[in-house]
């Protein structure tokens, strides 16, 4: 009887804890209106991946994912500085969107069916901002060359990521046994690997390159040629909020389209003048918001492209700044070039 009473009181307490977490929010309003009203964008990032989002010594965040947040803030609010960054772990990120803790996510997130679907995570993905693939990094001296060599070995992997599933798929389809050592964040994966707990570490190839850039002897580590998966990384928002999803989609396309048209941070105002003076340049006038009223259709101001490009530059500029040859984490552009230069980035027309 006493046990029963205790159990019941435990259950009651538990339910109260759970229900206490739920907050009432207006579901019918788009998050976009809330962002404008708040005059600040709350952007979920990782904060731990050099080149994508990394906390600098002066307290600011830097990286490709961070610049994408800035582009959104410039388009939504008109000021790329009005952002609150929320560092999130891989496991926290989707709950943070669904509960409304953050407005949107720009955090190395792989676009997959189950994350996009309403029966799965129920998100909506913006266009891909970085095409990545999962790889394996080993120590040069180990003499390991491919996936087969890693049979029966321990592999350090981050938990709560698609990486965890991919590594399992790869080993299972090759019928190779292995031991996954799972850590909650990438820094621990790196520490486990460097301390010799695992023969290899696995993550997206860009993250491996980023992690390696911080090692004492980067040349002692090699990234194997095996590519285990496609990892298209894209910003995401709540799937039920079409208005915000649309706005995000076209901000990314604007970045890509601007690169294709040669519109950069330094020449944007010249281009605006050019478009104003030449009524026959129809596509450019529509793109820069002089004609057509395209911005208003997605809940933004008509000149949102001008605001975005003048604060962050086009996609190519963002890439060069964070992942280019002279950056701290150089990654060849490869698939991330424009379609005109052998890559796969392309923007639908601004019509």
């Amino acid at each position, binding site marked *: 009887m006493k046990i029963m009473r205790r159990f019941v009181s435990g259950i009651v307490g538990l339910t109260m804890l*759970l229900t206490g977490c739920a907050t009432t929010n207006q579901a019918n309003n788009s998050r976009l209106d809330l962002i404008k009203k708040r005059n600040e964008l709350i952007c979920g990032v990782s904060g731990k991946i050099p080149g994508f989002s990394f906390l600098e010594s002066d307290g600011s965040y830097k990286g490709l994912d961070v610049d994408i947040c800035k582009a959104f803030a410039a388009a939504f609010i008109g000021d790329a500085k009005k952002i609150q960054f929320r560092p999130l772990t891989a496991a926290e990120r989707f709950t943070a969107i669904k509960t409304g803790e953050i407005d949107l996510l720009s955090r190395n997130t792989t676009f997959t069916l189950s994350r996009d679907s309403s029966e799965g995570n129920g998100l909506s993905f913006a266009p891909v901002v970085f095409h990545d693939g999962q790889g394996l990094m080993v120590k040069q001296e180990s003499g390991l060359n491919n996936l087969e060599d890693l049979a029966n070995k321990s592999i350090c992997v981050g938990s709560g990521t698609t990486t965890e599933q991919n590594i399992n798929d790869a080993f299972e389809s090759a019928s190779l046994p292995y031991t996954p050592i799972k850590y909650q964040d990438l820094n621990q994966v790196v520490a486990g690997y460097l301390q010799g707990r695992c023969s290899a570490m696995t993550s997206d190839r860009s993250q491996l390159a980023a992690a390696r850039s911080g090692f004492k002897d980067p040349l002692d580590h090699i990234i194997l040629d095996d590519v285990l998966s496609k990892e298209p990384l894209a910003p995401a928002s709540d799937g039920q909020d079409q208005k915000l999803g649309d706005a995000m989609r076209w901000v990314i396309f604007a970045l890509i389209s601007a690169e294709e048209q040669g519109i950069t941070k330094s020449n944007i105002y010249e281009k605006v003048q050019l478009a104003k003076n030449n009524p026959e340049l129809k596509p450019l006038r529509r793109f820069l918001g002089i004609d057509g009223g395209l911005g208003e259709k997605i809940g933004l101001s008509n000149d949102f492209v001008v605001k975005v490009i003048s604060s962050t530059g086009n996609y190519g500029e963002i890439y060069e700044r964070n992942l280019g040859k002279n950056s701290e984490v150089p990654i060849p552009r490869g698939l991330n070039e424009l379609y005109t230069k052998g890559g796969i980035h392309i923007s639908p027309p601004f019509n």
Partner: protein
Amino acid sequence: MNKHRNIFLQYFIFIVFISLFGILINNLAINLIRTGIGINFSWLLKPASFALAEYPLPYSASDTYAWALFIGWLNSLKVIFISLILSTFIGTLIGFARTSTHSLIGLIAAGYITIIRQTPLLLQLMFWYFVGFLGLKDNILIHIENIFKVSNQGIELYGLSFSSEFSALLFGLSIFTSAYIAEVIRGGILSVSRGQWEAFRSLGLSEIKGLISIIIPQALPAIIPGLTSQYLNLAKNSTLAIAVGYSDIYSINDTIINQTGRAIECFIILLTSFLFFNLIISNSMEIVNKIIVSSKKYN
């Protein structure tokens, strides 16, 4: 009159409590429907498709989520149970040392307790794992052929092998909890009046014999409740396993939440499992307490 007011007050509190509870439930239900999440446990029977490093029962990636969770539960139980025994053992020794009349021993024990209690557990776990075990690199710390081996792959004892993740968590939890247990033991011993010590000494009993047969039986009723709460803390602290890569129930939950997006269901499962762990602990301790109290009556 006073009695009536008491009854009225009780009913009032009861009604307030029930309505508050109702509002919270309603709030949760509305929000779940609104965000389109809903509560659904059917995913539990789908294949987990992730591998685990440690499993006390057979497990493969094609097993169900439910089975993966059960394996995680067993892994948690394993570390909690062994750590409970180990921390009680270390804690008791330190507790005795702390009350020792030998001042150097007392000082060492006090130093141990101070250092352990004033640093965060997470830090200690990281230390044991990344510096303690993994810091060994390829060196082998202790190696007695076929009996005992400590390396960065963990501990081997008579053919039983424990991974470095498990060992680090076990040590970290046991040592952390032992410092608190030592204080509980010391408090219990000090609660026995000085006269009892003088009495057994005058009877010619040795310090250790007197401690075991005279002091401890009288100190136990004061020790047990404190011990129970330390055991409960230990069970809850075991979730920090995720920091050192041990596949406990929390870490497996973390993976499942990410794969399925079923955060609420997973947390219900997690909270219920811990409620279960802690009910086992507190009820067993209550039984122990009853045995001690009743045996004392016949003394």
